[in-house]
């Protein structure tokens, strides 16, 4: 079909084979019409900045249709979104030049042929840059950040797997290629600490560290047990400074264990408690989903806190407590406008504290003063928060 009347493009609405119409819209207009020349464009994200926030939601109860929302924390607005799969995970390249979803799809929604893959998106255009299959699948679980990660130099993507033995699938971002599995017997989760190294928490309370080369030749080392895994396990989410190889684990009962993973054989400092006797008497405990985070430049630990009994480790927090990691002292308490399940921090000098509430609202606070910066509502079950440079 010829395209002589592109401005009345309804005609082309039925011409599926026709090429894009948008360049043609200003042609063939009435001779006395004033052309405005506005072309239809596709937006590109601004350069990544510290207050760029990515929010992953599994979209309960439609969990074959995960979404990732991209937020400008300064402007308090949505700047993009992308669709993901079933129980998808998410990771960001260290420079945010690419973002990654770790996806599982069935060819007919909930049935048919299963595909597990990592989708590479350009960090500015959100166009798909690559798709790399994960032949061993993925562990399917309500998403936690440490199920999928990227090495500190951005070279390798790591995806936790359990089918039935526990391993980490490794994908080379440069070659856009699946390299294979690194077995992590009895362990789970991925805490990257170098370009070729990650650690995992193990069911016996030890920490396993894997150092690998381009051919996945791997050295494993194990320290600990450093936690009482039976009575007081550490959360899956931890406060991390990946580039320095530091992870601060938080336990259900409020103990903090700082691990230095910058060497092949990590060292872990003795635990200290967030809680004074007075706090304990008032039943303060950590709780939530992404329950802990840190402001790396100043070494401050941020923890979601509530009053509750044992086994309330997923109860949303009513306050965020701020600790100086070096001195192990609480330096602030931020009362939250609405109870939150997840928190994250921007890593600049006037940091934002992002909180995802139990009613799916993103409330942003000044992380220093605790003053509210803004409130946004999007999605139905936004669970995980990622900031630029995470």
């Amino acid at each position, binding site marked *: *079909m010829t395209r*002589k*009347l592109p*401005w*009345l*493009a*309804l*005609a*082309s*609405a*039925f*011409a*599926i*084979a*026709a*090429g*894009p*119409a*948008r360049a043609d*819209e*200003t042609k*063939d*207009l*009435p*001779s*006395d*019409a*004033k*052309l*405005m020349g*506005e*072309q*239809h*464009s*596709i*937006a*590109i*994200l601004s350069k990544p900045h510290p207050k760029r926030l990515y929010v992953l939601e599994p979209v309960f109860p439609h969990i074959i*249709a995960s*979404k990732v929302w*991209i937020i400008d924390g300064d402007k308090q607005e*949505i*700047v*993009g*979104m*992308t*669709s993901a799969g079933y129980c998808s995970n998410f990771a960001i390249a260290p420079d945010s030049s690419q973002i990654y979803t770790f996806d599982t799809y069935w060819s007919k929604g909930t049935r048919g042929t299963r595909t597990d893959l990592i989708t590479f*998106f350009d960090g*500015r*255009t*959100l*166009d*798909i840059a690559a798709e790399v299959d994960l032949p061993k699948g993925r562990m399917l679980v309500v998403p936690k950040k440490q199920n999928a990660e990227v090495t500190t130099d951005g070279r390798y993507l790591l995806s936790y797997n359990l089918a039935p033995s526990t391993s980490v699938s490794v994908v080379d971002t440069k070659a856009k290629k699946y390299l294979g599995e690194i077995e992590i017997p009895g362990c789970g989760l991925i805490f990257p600490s170098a370009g070729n190294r990650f650690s995992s928490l193990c069911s016996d309370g030890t920490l396993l560290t894997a150092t690998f080369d381009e051919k996945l030749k791997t050295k494993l080392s194990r320290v600990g047990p450093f936690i009482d895994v039976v009575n007081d396990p550490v959360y899956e989410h931890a406060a991390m400074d990946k580039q320095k190889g530091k992870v601060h684990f938080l336990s259900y009962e409020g103990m903090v264990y700082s691990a230095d993973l910058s060497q092949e054989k990590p060292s872990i400092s003795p635990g200290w408690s967030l809680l004074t006797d007075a706090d304990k008497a008032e039943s303060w405990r950590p709780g939530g989903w992404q329950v802990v985070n840190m402001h790396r430049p100043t070494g401050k630990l941020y923890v979601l806190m509530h009053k509750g009994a044992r086994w309330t480790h997923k109860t949303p927090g009513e306050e965020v407590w701020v600790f100086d990691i070096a001195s192990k002292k609480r330096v602030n308490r931020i009362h939250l406008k609405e109870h939150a399940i997840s928190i994250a921090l921007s890593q600049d000098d006037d940091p934002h504290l992002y909180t995802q509430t139990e009613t799916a609202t993103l409330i942003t606070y000044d992380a220093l003063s605790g003053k509210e910066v803004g409130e946004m509502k*999007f*999605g139905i079950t936004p669970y995980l928060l990622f900031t630029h440079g995470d």
Partner: protein
Amino acid sequence: MFSGLQVIDKVFETMSRRTAQKISRRSFVARIGATLAGAAVLPVLPVARKAQAAEDPGVEWAKRVEAQTKDPRACNYWRYCSSDGYLCSCCGGGPATCPPGSTPSPTSWVGSCLNPDDGKMYLIAYRDCCGKDSCAQCGCLGTAGEMPTYRPQLNNDIIWCFGGSSMVYHCSSAAIVGQI
């Protein structure tokens, strides 16, 4: 999706009058007819409706919603007189811009909206941005002039992503083509 065509009759009327030298109305009707409806059907085109309509729905809409030109994230932003759906402006795009990573449908339709600032009518090209699940922000659901799906070119329930990379609807946008 969700995007009505209620003012296209006005556009067509205007253009068929003004562009008579370029293409006759008869040939236009015949062409659309062949695509849309085969040879058997006669008055499939909105122009037929215009002759009998009481008031231009685009003008009526601008009055009723107190159309404005400042906030493209509000349902009463002037360009949206024919647009129903989630506003791309609320999803990382703009009135004439698809959000990052979504693709404008190669197909579109055109409406005419009243700009309340200058009181003039503008041609607006509506096309859905496609390829991702619904962006779910700023749902603006108008029905002025909207027709059942057996008149598909006037129906706003149809997924208007024909010819795109994927038929999955993301959001609705609205670009200015010209002033009439």
